[in-house]
């Protein structure tokens, strides 16, 4: 079985062709870099995405946040719910951990901007 994908690693958007046999990736075509090849394998076996959103601080200012790494696609909405429950005070430094373990993935959510210095 083959699956055709568009790579999301960079704006080039390479067209990938992944060959699968019994759920195992046996071949990837069309990538231009290692990130693309890794993406193809991940996308057909255990797809992941970065989650970016904002957290409203007690002071009323919105702080942009992101998962430190991509998380499983099916955890995105659970991650959003957990981030919404976070209570945060200024000041915040870029890189500060906002949530240690997003939706049980073990991946932290971190601030993407310094505010309120």
């Amino acid at each position: 079985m083959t699956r055709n994908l568009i790579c999301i690693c960079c704006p080039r958007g390479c067209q990938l062709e992944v060959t699968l046999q019994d759920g195992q990736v046996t071949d990837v075509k069309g990538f231009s870099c290692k990130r693309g090849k890794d993406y193809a394998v991940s996308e057909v076996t255990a797809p992941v995405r970065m989650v970016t959103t904002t957290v409203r601080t007690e002071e009323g200012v919105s702080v942009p946040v992101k998962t430190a790494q991509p998380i499983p696609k099916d955890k995105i909405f659970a991650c959003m719910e957990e981030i919404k429950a976070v209570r945060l005070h200024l000041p915040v430094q870029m890189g500060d951990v906002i949530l240690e373990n997003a939706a049980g993935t073990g991946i932290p959510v971190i601030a993407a901007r310094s505010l309120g210095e």
Partner: protein
Amino acid sequence: MREFDLAVIGGGPAGMAAALAAKESGLERIVIFERDSVMGGILNQCIHNGFGLHTFQEELTGPEYAERYFRKVQEAGIPYETGTMVLDITPDRQITVISRERGVETVQAASVILAMGCRERPRGTLGIAGFRPQGIYTAGTAQRLLNIDGVLPGKEAVILGSGDIGLIMARRMTLEGAHVSAVFELMPYCNGLNRNVVQCLEDYNIPLHLSHTVVEIHGKDKLEGVTVAAVENGKPVPGSEEYFPCDILLLSCGLIPENELSRGCGIGINPLTNGPVVDDRLETNIEGVFACGNVLHIHDLVDYVSAEAAQAGRSAAAFVQGQRGDGGETHQIIPGDGVRYTVPCSFHRNSREDTHLRFRVRSIYRDATILISCGDQVIAKRKAPVLLPSEMQDITLKYPLLEQADADIIVRIEGVTA
């Protein structure tokens, strides 16, 4: 009157990169004027990731990209004045600014870099019938409301236009609990990047309908819905109309460089880009005034903006320091078959620097060849499996190549249009 070697108009990614490059090239008396209360420009509201792969070799969010540049500006000791709006620039580079701290003030700059960015195409330019109810926003306005002000501006959304901001907002609204019924695009191709179609629409089962547009807006005080129709040969197809109830319509129909200041200064504007006409030094027709970033032409990637802006910074420094030669004779760069525009529009034969030729194609091409010719001779050639109007092309013309170019250069595309 305060005097500067370089005044940079705009503290977004273009302005910061230009100021940094000018400083590295030895200019000392630099100032950045920024209208907003913070530096960083539009990046502050672009909280999604995908920035910085070229510049930093890693994938950052917009605010992170901005903050990294802002820290460099601070470390370099480059003065910046926020909350400061430029009102006027004269051809002899006197700049009138207004701020709460200084009131109205005129300063003298030896060189000026225009880095004002762009605005979104508003509803008024789109020609959609109907009333003007509350609930119609440009995608970027909604992005600001949601990401900076923390307000979700609607619950049931329709998006017109497939620009990247619209695609990004389709995902963002969905994550925040709104329902996005579809994205409609007038053109037969998507204007945003393929990666955004995948990760913003397909991931959330949001359909993209090409060759469709909104033909009527319903609701008098508050938006109630839109009628959408298929489009053929620029006209709505009778009988194809479909009604979509919604309380918010997002418009992602293109960006327009913000050149009121440039026009006021007498700078020539290229009708193809709505940005200043510049030469290979990114200098406008007014000596010592340069342009870069989205005020010059619309870019897909901030990384390209930073690179272009750095070139403008170096050019301004060379001008102020009297280090540039006369450049020799100049020739035009002309968009030929399949090419919508080029930046720059002209080049100096003896500029002694490589020239970045940036341009966009008119339609989708497959198995294409980009041909750059001078007179009867093809001087550069590049093959491309696919060329998309949504992707800016960037070809470096090596200096010795241009030194030999004794006539205008034409850029054209050969290939199959799809």
